[in-house]
């Protein structure tokens, strides 16, 4: 084959090898560029500070993504709560109050949804779970009215994919 059509076979060999190696080189280059840039940016911080900020960013990004994906339904809010509970033990100290607030808002929203479906005991249980979280954040007033206000704002959040659903 190589001897019968030397120009054509060598041309295709060259094209094939160039493209394959371009792909491999591109992957390796992308990875190297990514690692280099991250290292360069985080080099402006000391090691511990850099690790803290990376952990904080990851926790807050995970919680924000979970929040964005949460619909205003009982199942979705329960899912968000369990995601936040899983995230909490791994989160740095500075992220904990933010996660607590989000959990309290989820409980308050669940209470509203249970209230709407006349499940008063479940609604009360959800409110009771929200209260200690909010008191831990320095809220002196954790009355039903305040929890209802929190639920309203949670349902009307511009970041919710279905902001109007459940806001009765």
């Amino acid at each position, binding site marked *: 084959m190589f001897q019968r059509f030397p120009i054509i076979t*060598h041309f295709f060999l060259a094209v094939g090898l160039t493209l394959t190696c371009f792909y*491999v080189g591109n992957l390796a280059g992308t990875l190297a560029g990514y690692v280099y840039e991250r290292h360069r*940016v985080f080099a402006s911080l000391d090691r511990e500070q850099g690790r803290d900020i990376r952990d904080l960013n990851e926790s807050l990004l995970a919680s924000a993504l979970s929040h964005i994906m949460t619909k205003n339904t009982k199942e979705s809010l329960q899912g968000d709560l369990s995601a936040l509970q899983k995230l909490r033990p791994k989160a740095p100290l500075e992220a904990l109050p933010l996660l607590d607030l989000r959990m309290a808002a989820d409980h308050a929203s669940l209470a509203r949804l249970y209230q709407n479906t006349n499940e008063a005991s479940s609604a009360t249980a959800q409110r009771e779970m929200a209260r200690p979280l909010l008191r831990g954040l320095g809220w002196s007033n954790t009355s039903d009215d305040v929890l209802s206000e929190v639920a309203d704002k949670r349902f009307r959040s511009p970041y919710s994919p279905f902001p109007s659903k459940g806001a009765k």
Partner: protein
Amino acid sequence: MSRLTKIVAIVSCAVGLIAGAISGVSRGREGAAALIDAGCTSAQNELSVFSAVEFHYADSDHARQAVLSEMRIGGILQRLSPRMLGAQTVYVPYARLALIEDAAGNTSASQAAFAKVKEIVREHHPKEEVTLEMLKQVLQRYDDTLGTMRF
């Protein structure tokens, strides 16, 4: 395998690898910078929302703690991603702190934070006179219109 075939193979591999690596490095760096920016913006936004919520609902100790944490972490995030922060993300925490300290009766701390707000505002609007009452209105509008009071 003939000598010509070996030469073609080696040259093709070298050209492919070098061209791929050059284009990949810049793509990887851009990707990393975009991810870092997105992470910093998200973190800054979450901290700012938390400060706003604590400012409206919590006692002064917790509200102060939230604002100080926003300032401290915001300063580090700004170093990581300087292009993402606008002027308002710098002065809003100081404005909140001035009002928290004012409400708590810590006049000197309130004045120090207020002076910082004035300094930042003067950089952007040299003729503007700022008062504490104006700060309250601006913060209320900021929290209402930008949806920072979300949970």
